[in-house]
């Protein structure tokens, strides 16, 4: 048994003729904070979308808690047009669960461009995330025979909001919150689904250095508290370097480097990818 929560092998995502993620392999060990970085358009969010089931990868295998979760290989027309690495390695029956099934297994995520439910209050936003794990059906919910379950959901939601310091906004519309709090609410909502692995897509986007600092502490804090493993995409290098245990760097869909923060900082290929290469004449 490995201690990897998430194990990705040769994941390739090809849209038409564009290979957005090419043969990406990585491991996310339990209890660690792992970062995925790369220049704009490198395919980071696409990789996240594949892991959470929003996209169906063209090729590759994703295991969660040592069990195959997503598996696919190029078929049909894609077989001829496939441009990625290692086709046809994963010929087993294709697995492509919908995002809700993946969340049910214990992967929760936040979005790069915040996706809160805009007509709902802060409280309801978190409460809905509890819906998935509640023991009820639509009849028991309609006729209120699930009152105990409903009460438990409400109490847990309130506790979570108090903990995240969002309780005083609980009756406000989610979209009326300031930007930083909206990000925090999105994390609270993800936590409410009781995940084992939390995927954060640019949690510090649009934050000032002060807020970024707070976020770093916050991420560490929730990891301890909820026994989480965290996999994040981030552009703020100071945040990434400070909190990650291990970093993967991708560019043009392919992995170009991996290592501990200090190794990445001095890696020539990473510096080239970010700053561009001066071509000798």
């Amino acid at each position, binding site marked *: 048994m490995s201690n990897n929560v998430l194990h990705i092998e040769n994941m390739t995502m090809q849209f038409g003729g564009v290979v957005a993620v090419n043969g990406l392999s990585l491991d996310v060990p339990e209890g660690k904070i792992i970062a995925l970085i790369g220049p704009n358009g490198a395919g980071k969010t696409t990789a996240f979308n594949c892991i959470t089931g929003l996209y169906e990868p063209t090729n590759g295998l994703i295991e969660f808690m040592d069990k195959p979760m997503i598996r696919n290989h190029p078929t049909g027309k894609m077989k001829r047009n496939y441009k990625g690495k290692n086709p046809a390695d994963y010929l087993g029956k294709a697995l492509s669960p919908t*995002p809700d099934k993946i969340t049910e297994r214990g992967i929760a995520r936040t*979005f790069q461009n915040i996706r*809160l*439910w805009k007509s709902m209050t802060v409280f309801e936003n978190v*409460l809905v995330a509890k819906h998935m794990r509640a023991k009820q059906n639509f009849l028991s919910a309609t006729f209120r025979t699930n009152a105990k379950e409903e009460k438990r959901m409400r109490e847990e939601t309130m506790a979570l909001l108090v903990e995240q310091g969002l309780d005083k906004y609980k009756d406000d519309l989610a979209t009326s919150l300031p930007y930083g709090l909206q990000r925090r609410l999105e994390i609270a909502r993800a936590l409410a689904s009781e995940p084992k692995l939390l995927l954060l897509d640019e949690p510090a986007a649009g934050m000032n250095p002060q807020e970024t600092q707070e976020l770093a502490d916050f991420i560490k804090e929730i990891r301890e508290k909820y026994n989480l493993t965290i996999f994040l995409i981030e552009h703020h290098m100071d945040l990434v370097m400070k909190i990650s245990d291990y970093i993967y760097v991708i560019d043009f869909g392919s992995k170009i480097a991996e290592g501990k923060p200090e190794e990445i900082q001095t890696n020539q290929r990473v510096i080239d990818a970010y700053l561009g290469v001066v071509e000798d004449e």
Partner: protein
Amino acid sequence: MKKNKKAFNKGSLITLLIIAAVLVLTVVLENTINANSLLFTVIRKSAVYSLVAVSMNLLNGFTGLFSLGQAGFMLLGAYTYAILTIPSDTRESIYYLFQGSSFNFSFVDLFSSVFGQQGAGKTVSLISGVLLAIICAGIVAAVFAYLIGLPVLRLKSDYLAIATLGFAEILRAIFQWDKLGKVTNGANALRGYPTFADFNITNANGQIVFRLASFVPLLIAGICIFIIVLLINSSYGRAFKAVRDDEISAEAMGISLAKHKSLSFCISSFFAGVGGALFAMFASTVQAKTFTSAMTYEILLIVVIGGIGSVSGSCIASFLYIACSEWWLRFLDNTQYIGGKQVPLLRNGFRMVVFSVIIMIVVLFFRKGIMGDKELPDLFNRLLNRKKKVTVKEGTENE
């Protein structure tokens, strides 16, 4: 926070009181003023339409699925109700073109053979037979919705609307098909089943002692709408709203889109089917040609005027809509004379012109419908809070 909760209860209490008052007033009026007044037609029809409008609102307003199949599900409900309740002995004469019906039983007969044909037995068998038939009408509509939803719910917005509209039109054509005549009576009307008028309490001579013909549809529609409101305020209702607001994040938070969309579609169709059964009782004949797409548009209009995402809006709008189209604007259709001079423009058909103009004005001035996405309790709470604020302000000024 505690104060908020209290205010919430107050608003709901006022709403409940209003609903109770409407019910009582209906019974009282029915038994005091002329029972043939158009008011009661309007009440019955708007009770039926408000149920169907609320069921459409559940789908369009709360789950964000733009479906136009409501008339089709009403048709299913109406036919199911009629076929299950036409008394066996009149079937021969109603299905005379097709030499009798292939179903030779009726729920009301079935129950009256258990409870007896006279007195209380008759009442019990009427009520239980009608209720069972109404529930069956809903279930048939829901089963069809589930089956049609399997392929159709993958579509989004306009495409879903077109597909469901097509489904309703196909149903209407199929129900007029001669080959099914033994079941549906082809293009001919079904009649003779219990209607709202059968709920009037009569004495032994058949004279009406106490009228309930307008109260019963209000009560049934009210109970159904109450159940829908309960659903909307439950965990599932919140999940529906999440799907409406953002499908991608709803799915990422573990809400199965296929399951919840199908659930909402089935429940909405269930109540549309019940609405259809009530419509059959209201119209006292069922004929497939009445359930046109124009009927769906009427209901859509009610939903839009009332406010997409507001249950009370749909109810208020359906009353106003039906009252305007059937009652208040009637006089515009008749030529009238004031002081010997004919009033210009008033002639047959002018009513619809004025009606259309009114709808345009309403839509222009209430962009989000009469109620927006608010409910009556919210409105009362806001009024109460405003009053409180005013008194608090006055108090501070005095100091």
